[in-house]
């Protein structure tokens, strides 16, 4: 106690100094070794080459897990047979694509060669349009609410985000238990004197609930993005509008919405891509039924490539190629719009 009180202020014990200098020496040694190695490498391959060198690990992972499978998918789309090995498959040209898109009347799937695919495409298109529009409306409304100074704002932000953390299978099964014939909702309806409703066995109800559930389970994510966008709008603009006597409606249409557009665009593109890829939550919730009312493109691919005992990898790959093309178009449109937006 006495000794420490005698110690000059700011002085570091010598033992600690030794340890620090030891680690500094090791660190310096590593840095020098790396520097020597990289200097030589840079002399050898040049500055541009170094850029490729640093990108290489990521590029390797990307090639093995994304680029390679994409290329394989492309090749499989032009082959037929049951074998999983490419060398054992027969080249059939555009036969799979022809099969997918041979139709007397695209508005009547029953006239199509691969009617289930056309139904899946139609269902997906309707789902994407409905889900994305309502997703934007609901997420924006929620973000606007959560942006206000309300009591328990932090709590409500967590509540709205919580479903995003749930596994899609859990979400699907949970809602199935709520909505099935002997589910909680029907029990409540019966106990109130009503009659059971076939939420899962009526096409229109099933389609509606699929949209509701997918919005419920993902809106927290988009709300968060929109909330960040709302908070980046300068408050001075609202103050100026207040001075000019603008009401809430005018402020929303004149300030909030225009300044939120770049964020909205991101939300629209992300939610559209996600909507096109919808599968897991619907698979657990309706299984694609009733009939094929909630049967979407990824479900078609899954059935043909994996679930069915008679594996039709060619058809599944053809459908994947179609879906990838649609998503690429969406992404290009987004890039183009962002470019226009940034330049303006």
């Amino acid at each position, binding site marked *: 106690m006495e000794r420490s009180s005698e110690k000059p202020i700011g002085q570091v014990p010598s033992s600690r100094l030794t340890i620090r200098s030891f680690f500094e020496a090791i660190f310096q040694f590593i840095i020098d070794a790396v520097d020597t190695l990289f200097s030589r490498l840079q002399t050898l391959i040049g500055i541009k080459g170094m850029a490729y060198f640093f990108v290489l690990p990521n590029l390797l992972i990307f090639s093995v897990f994304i680029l390679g499978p994409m290329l394989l998918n492309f090749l499989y789309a032009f*082959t*037929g*047979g*049951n*074998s*999983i*090995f490419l060398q*054992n*498959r*027969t080249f*059939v040209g555009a036969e799979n694509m022809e099969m997918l898109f041979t139709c007397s009347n695209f508005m009547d799937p*029953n006239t199509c060669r691969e*009617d*289930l695919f056309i*139904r899946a495409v139609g269902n997906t298109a309707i789902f994407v349009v409905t889900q994305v529009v309502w997703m934007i409306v609901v997420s924006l409304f929620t973000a606007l609410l959560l942006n206000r100074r309300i009591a328990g704002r932090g709590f409500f932000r967590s509540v709205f985000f919580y479903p995003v953390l749930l596994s899609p299978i859990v979400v699907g099964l949970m809602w199935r238990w709520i909505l*099935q*014939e*002997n589910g909680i909702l029907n029990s409540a309806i019966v106990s109130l004197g009503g009659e059971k409703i*076939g939420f*899962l*066995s009526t*096409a229109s109800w*099933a389609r509606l609930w699929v949209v509701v559930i997918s919005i419920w389970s993902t809106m927290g994510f988009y709300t968060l993005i929109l909330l960040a966008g709302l908070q980046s709008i300068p408050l001075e603009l609202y103050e100026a509008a207040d001075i000019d006597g603008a009401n809430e409606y005018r402020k929303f249409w004149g300030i909030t919405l225009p300044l939120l557009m770049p964020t909205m665009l991101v939300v629209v593109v992300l939610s559209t891509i996600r909507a096109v890829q919808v599968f897991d939550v619907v*698979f657990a919730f*309706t*299984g*694609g*039924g*009733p*009939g*094929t*009312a*909630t*049967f979407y493109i990824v*479900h078609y691919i899954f*059935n043909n490539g*994996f*679930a*069915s*005992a*008679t*594996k*039709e990898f*060619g058809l599944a790959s053809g459908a994947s190629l179609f879906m990838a093309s649609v998503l690429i178009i969406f992404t290009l449109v987004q890039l183009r719009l962002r470019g226009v937006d940034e330049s303006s």
Partner: protein
Amino acid sequence: MNKRITFIAMLLLVMMIGLVPTLAQDTIELNFTCYQDGTECDTYADLLDTFMEENPGIVVNLETVPYQFIIESLPVIVEVGDGPDIARVTDYPGFSDFYLDMRPYMEDPALLEDNFNAVPLAAFRSADNPDGLHGFPDAVTATAPFVNATLFEQAGVELLGEGATWEEWIDALTQVRDATGVDYAFTIDNRGHRFAGPAMSMGANFFDEEGNFALAGDEGFSTFAEMLKNWLDTGLSASETWATGDTYTAANEFFINVQTVMYFSGSWQVGGFANTIGDAFDWVVVPNPTGPGGSTGVVGGAGIAAFDSGDDARNAAITAVMEYLLQPEVYAEFSGRTLNLPAHAGALEIGVEYDTDNPLVASALTQFGAEVGKLQDQAWMVAFNPFSFAYFSASNTRLAQYFFGEIDLEDVTVGIQSDIEDAMANADNS
């Protein structure tokens, strides 16, 4: 003296340690991929413990997997060369390129060849080996209706028996439903497999003379489809069962929860009902209802198959395991403990003692045994045709589409036939 003893002991120890790798090298480890509806894999594990005690050079690692794994993943695993040595499968023809022909390794091929129905044994074979012995069914299943006898008693309606038609049954079931207030008269799993038996009873002919599927325009099939749609539309049957697309939905919960008077399924439900229903109510298996095509369910079931390892010693070990499981007394014990109908004539001869003291279970298994005896030929073929699974998949989807108004009645059989032909054309490309 003590030093010498210590030295000898050390020497022996070193020699024994040296021997361990040699012993390990002589042991052949086999992999058995198994799925179970009830206790099949657990029973195999017990039986194989005895086998391993008798055959110390063979170790069988039994892995229990979900049925989905057998359908979805096993075909890919087998094709890439990482498959098991033995597997419990349902799609016998699906692996025919990879099976082991056990004949050269078997002590007594007749044990397999003479004890089983020729149709399932042929289903294991590939076209280039028409006499091969690759596996055997370890359980025969048959489809037939389960009826809640207590509800019939409460309603004062007499239970129908052999020869009663579908119309008579539905009439009786409706009376019981109305009298007791349960939700449904009749439920059936949403599978084309379950649907096949009643369709055959209504006169459906699934195959042409060459044994190929020929369903387009079949009247018997359409008749039962129309009858079932009518029952679903009028609330006699549970439409939610058929509302899950092509995802399997067993309607057994409606039966267990006393929401339906009749449940059409198969013998694999017996063990489950014995446990879940207990003595809550009396249930019986009744003969398949009759129609213009007679009275038949369809067969099904699982079997174990041997896969070619490419190594003689390993193939001999695989065959030894299969031959052990083929012994009539071993097979009979498996059937008795798992409450499965045996497919083995030798096991039937020595008699199967079902491991149950529940008279309802014993009676149900007896009735299912009787149903197997009167199955039509096409009832066997529908389960073991090389494109059976194409039919199952297509019929599940097309029937569901018809029931929910997406396609017309005449498009059901045409659609199923077209889907099967697509699968055949795809296989031809291999």
